[in-house]
């Protein structure tokens, strides 16, 4: 066991699965890095270097550069998965996903259903999300809610390096299309990550702490922020349970409900927009199934319903932070 970054953890999971199963392939823009250039190979490993090192180990037949044509290479991944391979395709920024919604929503997500359960589509689409990277509104959105909405897709939002490795391993082994959301400002976060391969099952929430007064459900990078808020709350004598659902689809509804039944209060923290979102979804599920357990109003701490601003001061104000969570908890407790 050693300290690994979020980036290294994802890279290690892919490499270990490629060693384990020769059907696992990687492709995307600059994933091999250097195709068509002056001869330097493995120059990039994807725009932020997550796949670097895979080309030298696995060669150009398993690690491929693609043209800047998302609809083509995401469609190719769906077809390859349906015919027996296990592609891991990188769609650089989730903001670009719009050009291949048909391949994802209408094709990959529907194969198992429309072919009477006889087809499987073991593909992973890796993609970056999140604000805070000074990359403006077309490279900063947190669009997991859009994919969570579509039956047939599995949606993973890992909250730490340990989680990222185990969830990526599971994503590659899973027989359904998985959209794997990597928060771009977390790539250099480090923690202890086992060297051995391990898989974290989908649909099984993690409690990073258990308390009595309030349940805070947080998504992806917000789990760390929620824990900072919980540290603050503890000093004020308020003890929080923090739930990391790990996957927004499937969602571990049972654990969330159980926690709310124990604490009587719910605050959902989500850095995506507030309308038709994972936050509003979780809030409605709890309101419907655990209403009688609630001792106060459900609170959502989200980004506003605006594009991500480019001005650094505004971008910093845009993302949920510990102070906003503490305030929301106090409203829920009032």
């Amino acid at each position, binding site marked *: 066991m050693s300290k690994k970054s979020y980036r290294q953890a994802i890279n290690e999971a892919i490499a270990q699965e490629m060693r384990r199963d020769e059907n696992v392939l990687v492709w995307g823009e600059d994933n091999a890095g250097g195709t068509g250039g002056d001869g330097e190979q493995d120059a990039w490993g994807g725009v932020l270097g997550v796949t670097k090192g895979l080309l030298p180990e696995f060669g150009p037949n398993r690690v491929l550069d693609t043209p800047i044509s998302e609809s083509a290479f995401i469609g190719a991944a769906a077809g390859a998965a349906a015919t027996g391979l296990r592609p891991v395709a990188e769609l650089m920024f989730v903001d670009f996903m719009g050009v291949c919604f048909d391949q994802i929503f209408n094709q990959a997500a529907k194969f198992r259903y429309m072919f009477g359960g006889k087809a499987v589509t073991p593909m992973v689409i890796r993609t970056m999300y999140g604000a805070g990277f000074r990359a403006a509104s077309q490279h900063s959105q947190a669009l997991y809610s859009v994919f969570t909405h579509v039956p047939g897709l599995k949606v993973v939002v890992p909250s730490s390096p340990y989680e990222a490795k185990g969830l990526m391993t599971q994503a590659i082994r899973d027989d359904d299309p998985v959209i794997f959301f990597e928060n771009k400002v977390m790539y250099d976060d480090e923690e202890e990550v086992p060297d*051995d391969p*391990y898989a974290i099952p989908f649909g099984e929430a993690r409690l990073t702490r258990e308390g009595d007064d309030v349940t805070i459900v947080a998504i992806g990078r917000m789990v760390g922020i929620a824990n900072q808020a919980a540290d603050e709350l503890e000093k004020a004598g308020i003890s929080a349970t923090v739930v990391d659902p790990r996957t927004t689809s499937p969602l571990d509804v049972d654990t969330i409900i159980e926690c709310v039944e124990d604490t009587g209060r719910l605050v959902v923290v989500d850095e995506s927009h507030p309308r038709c979102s994972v936050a509003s979804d979780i809030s409605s599920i709890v309101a419907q199934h655990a209403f009688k357990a609630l001792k106060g109003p459900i609170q959502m701490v989200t980004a506003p319903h605006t594009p991500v601003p480019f001005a650094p001061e505004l971008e910093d104000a845009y993302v949920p932070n510990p102070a906003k969570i503490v305030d929301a908890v106090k409203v829920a407790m009032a």
Partner: protein
Amino acid sequence: MTDSIQPIIMPKWGLAMTEGLLASWSVVEGVTINAGDEICEIETTKLANMFESPVSGLLRRCVATEGEDLPVGALLAVVAASDVSDVDVDAYVARFQEDFVPEEADDTGPEPESVTVDGLRLVYLKQGEGDGIPIILLHGFGADMNGWLFNQGDLSEVAPTFALDLPGHGKSAKQVGDGSLMWMAGVVEKFMSAMSLPTVHLVGHSMGAGIALQIAADQPQAVKSLTLIAGAALGDEVNIEFLEGYVAAKRQKHMKPVLQQLVYDKDLISPDMMEEVFKFKRIDGVIDGLNTLIQTNFVGGTQQGSLRDALSALSIPVTIIWGREDQIIPVSHTDGLPASVKIEIIEHSGHVPQMEHASRVNEIITATIASAA
């Protein structure tokens, strides 16, 4: 007079520990304490445990305050005879604090190493030097080398110690063969030859004790003493609900009552400890290995194959340690053992006396090893 002033410092429990929280004092200034007395409770990111005083004497100062986070090696308290003046005690404290430099975060001391035998990667932690006959520590079902974190430091002052991650556990290979104690013993024997350890003292806990006993039966000339803590293979019963619950539980809520069966003081089971168990169980191959061990050794809650006869045949010092309140393997398994076997029952202890009463267990192990000389 400062020679007679003794510091009590923040212990280092396990390789990863860099600081600890002094949760509460259980003694007050002015009382006389004995080595092994529980003097305070310390919490780390991984566990909470009572800290047993390493020294005896009059407790003059509790330097650390409750709720304080302190680095490993920081001054907790000062023990000095009554004829040492308060001025001298205070001067000692002031000088200690002035000179104290916490160890660097990346200076974690000895690191685990690995060796491959028969294609199996075995990870071990070696601590201690010298030419004494080495001590091998064998953990129990579902545990790993960290189960010896309260013991290995003390024992390594006696002789070099090797805490091994058994196959299927910790960071070692996850294959467990047919899961039998005999197969496991064979792997440890190959480890001994790969590491050029012709003679050893063996200390085993639970399943590891069964393995230690099997090794002593296989190679009586190689084993100079045997300390078996709450050992397997000495009777029929074993708590199958614990074993199966350990494998099945996926949430802290379900794991907590399972792990609490291990200990007398139920507060010892921390959320971080449970997370470590979950992380271990997710590693590829672990669940299969654990199930094989259960099927082969403990199926239906009955231990398969007693090694009591092997025990009678041994002519080396053998000590058996058991917690009076053990809920995993009953203390009654110490009944009717050969007279040559020394039996030590630890009061207020569950299945893991080496963690719950570490100082006492370390003394017993040290005495057993000394008696083999």
